[in-house]
């Protein structure tokens, strides 16, 4: 039953054995194949395992490819996984994180101008937790620090690149909401002019 070993077989074995995500380039290097071919094979494997509804999956994260248990089976796995659940972020932190993710590079002042509150604490928390990092400094007065999301942020979201983030258009409030808001604002403005 020897025969030639398939590329799938080699890649599966390496993902079985790896303790950290590995890039397609690194895998290609070991198996002596084109990175593009490796990438395609991994994508096929992912589709195959998904379709077969296996208890494991092959996924591409920002830091590389991994083999992991399928999230659907999480409830059955926790006993053996024995790993801590990700910390919860407050909704304030999540909103700031969303702003940073979609508007990066962005300064604290810009986030705070949008959210209407001071965001120093929240930004520091997100940085300490490894969701965001400094990307550099803006030109101009004060040279404020510009923030962006980290590779680890994408890893934790289960995404390979920023392009995999959900498209922002899908989350814009519907036109009715906009109209309602516009009316509310108009009322409030009129009130304050009267008083």
């Amino acid at each position: 039953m020897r025969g030639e070993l398939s590329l799938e077989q080699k890649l599966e074995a390496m993902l079985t054995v790896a303790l950290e995500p590995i890039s397609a380039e690194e895998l290609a290097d070991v198996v002596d194949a084109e990175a593009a071919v490796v990438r395609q094979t991994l994508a096929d494997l992912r589709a195959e395992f998904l379709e077969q509804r296996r208890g494991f999956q092959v996924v591409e994260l920002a830091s590389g490819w991994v083999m992991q248990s399928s999230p659907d089976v999480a409830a059955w796995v926790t006993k053996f996984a024995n790993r801590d659940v990700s910390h919860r972020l407050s909704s304030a932190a999540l909103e700031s994180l969303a702003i940073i993710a979609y508007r990066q590079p962005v300064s604290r002042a810009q986030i705070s101008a949008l959210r209407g509150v001071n965001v120093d604490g929240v930004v520091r928390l997100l940085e300490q937790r490894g969701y965001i990092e400094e990307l550099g400094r803006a030109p101009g007065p004060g040279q404020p620090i510009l923030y962006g999301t980290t590779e680890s942020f994408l890893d934790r979201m289960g995404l390979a690149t920023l392009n995999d983030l959900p498209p922002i258009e899908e989350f814009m409030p519907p036109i009715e909401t906009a109209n309602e808001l516009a009316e509310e604002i108009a009322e409030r403005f009129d009130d304050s002019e009267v008083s």
Partner: protein
Amino acid sequence: MTFVVTTPSFSGPIELLLQLISSHDVDILDVPLAPLVDAFVATLRDDTTELDMEDLSEFLLIGAVLLEMKSHRLLPGPESGEIDEEFIGWEERDVLLARLLELRTYAALADAFVSLFERASRAYSRLRGVDDGFVVQPPDLLAGVTTTQLALAYLRGIEEKPVPVVRLHHVTVDAVTVAETVAALSQRLPTMGRFSFRQLTEPLVTRIEVIVHFLALLELCKLGYVTLGQGATFGEVQIEWLDTNASVDFGGVDRYEG
């Protein structure tokens, strides 16, 4: 306790003042802020009142908010940076609407993030690694790592992480009074020459410590031991110890617990 302030147009607790100004019942331009600060300092120096750090920070916070509101009213033109540039010429209410809509969008995205995070955190990666029996002679991953780098890595590793629980021992460490800090600073400062507030507070960990240091410096300034200066608006606060032979008299420094 709460601070009661008295101004020509208002008399009452400072929180109420902020509330009234926010709801446009009192015009901030009618409220002189300097007397508020003087009254605050007077209260601090009054030995008979007991203060805790929370009241103190509360006052500082409200004071800062009032100051910001007033400066916004006094300064010509909005200065909120790039965000608003694209909206130049828009009515104020249109800008507000645009901002609200954008915020709603991000709030919805935040929810989407939660489900992505949750789903991803339910996938567990493999831990088994290479099975025994394989001859693994990996390169020395520690090559080039010095003991100093190791020590620094240790410090990074144990760096304070956000902890959701209140741990009492922090309170013990942070319980530094302004009076104690004045005493400590009067030992340190004469040897330091000219330096900035940022340099002084760089090693401090908590906000309370920074506030306590700031108050202590104000004390020392009022008592005539240091000069405080600021080159430009929002520039660094520069501190210099004045050459004086008089020893610091702690009698006038208020004793309140942190």
